[in-house]
């Protein structure tokens, strides 16, 4: 049994999810809470945001995000792919910085314009 707080709305229901019973959710007060609880225990995913080093600009870092969610367990490994790279300016929002992070379908993309 896993206990978690639902983040679907501000109410913050305390959910219990039973991994041994097809991820049955209790403590939720709506259907969306059930979906969240199931997904969160079965296969939690997150968007990861960070920054990457920049050269040739007055800016030294460019903010980036994963363009889709990645498995929660890969967050630290994903962060490491940004450690030793430097991207030359100019950078456009949406520009791919690291493609197919840790063999997922997600890419790190720039989230701002760097001139």
């Amino acid at each position, binding site marked *: 049994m896993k206990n978690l707080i639902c*983040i679907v709305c*501000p109410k913050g229901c305390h959910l219990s999810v039973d991994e041994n019973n097809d991820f049955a959710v209790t403590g939720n007060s709506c259907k969306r809470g059930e979906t969240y609880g199931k997904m969160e225990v079965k296969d939690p995913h997150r*968007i990861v*945001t960070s920054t990457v080093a920049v050269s040739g600009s007055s800016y030294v*870092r460019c*903010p980036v*995000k994963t363009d889709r969610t990645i498995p929660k367990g890969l967050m630290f490994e994903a962060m490491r792919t940004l450690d030793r790279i430097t991207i030359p300016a100019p950078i456009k929002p949406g520009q791919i910085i690291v493609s197919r992070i840790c063999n997922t379908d997600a890419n790190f993309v720039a989230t*701002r*314009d760097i001139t």
Partner: protein
Amino acid sequence: MNGTANTYDLIVIGAGPAGLAAAVEAWNRGLKKILIVERAKEAGGILMQCIHNGFGLHYFKEELTGPEYAERFITMVDKTGIEIKLDTMVLDITSRKQVHMVNTKDGYQILEAKTIVLAMGCRERTRGAIGIPGTRPAGIYTAGTAQRLLNIEGYMPGTRILILGSGDIGLIMARRLTLEGAKVLACVELLPFSGGLTRNIVQCLNDFDIPLYLSHTITEIKGDKRVTGAVVMQLDGSRKPVPGTEMEFDCDTILLSVGLIPENELTKKADIRMDPRTKGAIVYENRETSVPGIFACGNAVHVHDLVDFVTEEGQLAGAGAAAYVQAGTKDGQTVELINGNDVGYTVPQHVRPEQMGDSTGIYFRVKSVHKEPCFISIKSGTAEIARLKRDHMAPGEMERISLTRDQLQNTTGKVSVSIEEGGTK
């Protein structure tokens, strides 16, 4: 009114989300001589260092990062003829709508405007504001300063980190620093509940097993040149440390996320009436202040949790400024909104039913956590004019209700907003 050829229709002070939205809205409603003055080197305000996602769910119906949200409004401004002065500090404004400013290119300038929108945002409370005992070593930062160091300048503020306060910026930084390899030891909150959004507690603390100590505070900071540790103690009901509950943390850095204060030095210089509850200007439904033609919006008026509502407020102020230039202010009845049970403040504080349009949004915060269903009761004297149910309310989540002109028009001049517990009605 001022009327020289160089007079701006509108000068907006601050190019954060509030100021950008105000300028774009005023432009769309017909004002053509608009200037935005910004002290930083680029527009976007604090959003530029808020690289995490979760912005824009209400306004754009998608999750954006801070820079992406800002970029959308900067692009809108770029498509208009709105002027923008960056790297320019406003030193003074007068109630006659003269704006004194200085930068390295134009030197000292006094520009006149028919209307002004104040959108200076807010600043963080510091160690001095909360009076923590102990020595004064390096390694103590406000959460927003640490955020700027890490996300913009590219420096790690420390390796073993203790966070005081559970405001959203502190929570966001707990996750950010952890992902960058720091050890965040704990988040310590004075109150028995967190001031942050639930999703931040879950995704920034729980995801990384960072403990949150409620009803605790830092009672001592150790270290000579650099922070070497801190003592945390539990607090009793009257917020006094309980002897025997000392926990010592071996940390080199302390982040403070202990609240934000609207920035209003300029507002006070223009003799605008202030609200001691919000620490911002007292505003009408269109965000006009007590000085006709000067408007205020965003975190300079009251601290918001969500940028979407800052945008909404900026648009109200921009629309108000446009209407003022085009039609002037009309006199009329004013309704004052007052705190009822468990309500900390309301914005706007004053409403003019004859000028408000069909309905107006009222923002407010409750003072305590309500876990059981309760009601928002709007009363004029003893007569209830509106009653709304909420399943849950907390001080960390700003409430927004909407009142119609009909509801407000036949009131006694004072309307209260209060919270009533449970029951079925």
